[in-house]
């Protein structure tokens, strides 16, 4: 089996955050801790305005810096499907992964004194099911599967204006994005 990853269709996403909430529910997360987060961007001047959403969980990168820098080996890449998962027991809360992820995904959980992150719902994946965020999306904007196949089907775009350079960690994602998200000359702002 090859590397698993996500396809995200920003063109149809309505920003409802069902994915974010399904993730919180699945992982039983407190207020403020988001393993998957929906960001919103906007720009332009009336009447030429634009906006789009971006939903990001762990990108299960090909070269995850969090895995490399984790001193305990708590975060590791599964051999069978390349999912970047965390052995929560092993974490010592040093936040090295937080300092390593350009996508802001590992979340330091104050109450536990540990970091938590999206495991790609590895337990569900092992049962042949989809991660919770995928099935929760009413627009079917998130797909999960073999990243090579997803790229064949949807193209290979993971460098948006608002995303860090993909050469840093080679994220296993591909995105269908609006022009404004791709055009380097377009400047917008992050709403949240």
């Amino acid at each position: 089996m090859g590397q698993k990853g996500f396809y995200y269709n920003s063109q149809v996403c309505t920003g409802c955050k069902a994915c974010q909430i399904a993730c919180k529910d699945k992982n039983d997360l407190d207020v403020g801790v988001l393993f998957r987060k929906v960001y919103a961007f906007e720009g332009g001047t009336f009447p030429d305005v634009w906006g789009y959403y971006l939903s990001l969980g762990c990108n299960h990168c090909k070269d995850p810096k969090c895995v490399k820098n984790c001193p305990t080996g708590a975060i590791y890449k599964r051999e069978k499907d390349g999912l970047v998962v965390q052995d929560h027991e092993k974490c010592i809360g040093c936040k090295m992964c937080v300092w390593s992820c350009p996508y802001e995904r590992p979340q330091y959980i104050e109450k536990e004194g540990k970091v938590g992150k999206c495991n790609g719902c590895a337990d569900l994946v092992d049962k042949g099911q989809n991660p919770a965020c995928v099935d929760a999306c009413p627009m079917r904007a998130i797909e999960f599967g073999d990243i090579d196949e997803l790229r064949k089907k949807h193209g290979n775009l993971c460098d948006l204006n608002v995303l860090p350079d993909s050469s840093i960690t080679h994220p296993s994602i591909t995105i269908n994005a609006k022009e404004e998200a791709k055009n380097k000359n377009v400047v917008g702002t992050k709403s949240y």
Partner: protein
Amino acid sequence: MFSEEWPLLTFTLLAQLAVGSYIFFVIIRSLNKKLGMNLGINVTKRGIFFVGPVMVLAFICAVFHLGTPLGAPRSLLHLGSSWLSREILFSGAFLILWIFSYYLDRKGAWNQTIGWITSLVGIGDIYSMASIYANSIRPAWTDVNTYIAFYGTTIVFGAAASMAAILLSKVEKTEGLMSIAKRIGLVGLAAIVLQLIYLPVYVAGLSVHGGTAGVESASLLTGNYAVTILFRWILSIAGLAIIGSAFYRKVSPKTQSTIWYAALTLVLVGEFLGRYIFYGTGISIGIGS
């Protein structure tokens, strides 16, 4: 966010104080024969002792950085690729080797080779420490500046502590000893000058190659932190200069030690401010930035 890094900030400073001092003491000891009268050993006797407790204190600070302090030993489990694991390994090895070399020293059987090995491990420790930051996603840290700053502090601390050790010791201040102290002072100053030369290169590089986060760090360095940076260098230089000048003044031993404590405080505060700026300007790259 920043307040959480206090233990880490203190850890890096204390570890660099311990390693820097130890290395300079070992260098002075290597000149023992040349100095005669066992001066090299006698003048550093008290100083060598302090290295261990400072390193222990550094370790205690490091543990408090962790959200789960009891899991600290697990930080050694990923030596293959994690610089944090390597840093803990080197720090531990440095402490163990210090215990060994101090034990021999107490017995009057100082071993110079073990002194050099301990120093090398110390240098490795500082390298690992800097590499942690150099491998992060903060443009202000992923620069050779991190190595220059960490080794710079190590040298400045080492120079200040070893000059002070010579000044405070009750041994006869021979000409040979004074000339070593002078050279130590110059090494300390050189470490500062090198950092000052690199500073504009660093800031310019951040604004050009650092992306949005780099530009933000650069504007902090030239804006909010500019005055602090100025103070930081004045304090470190003044501290070193005062320790150095104390050699040339005939004052009572009591005044001398007062001057020494005042000067060392200046160096400590100067380096503390430098590290504070280092953490304060570490802006992450991220989503929409």
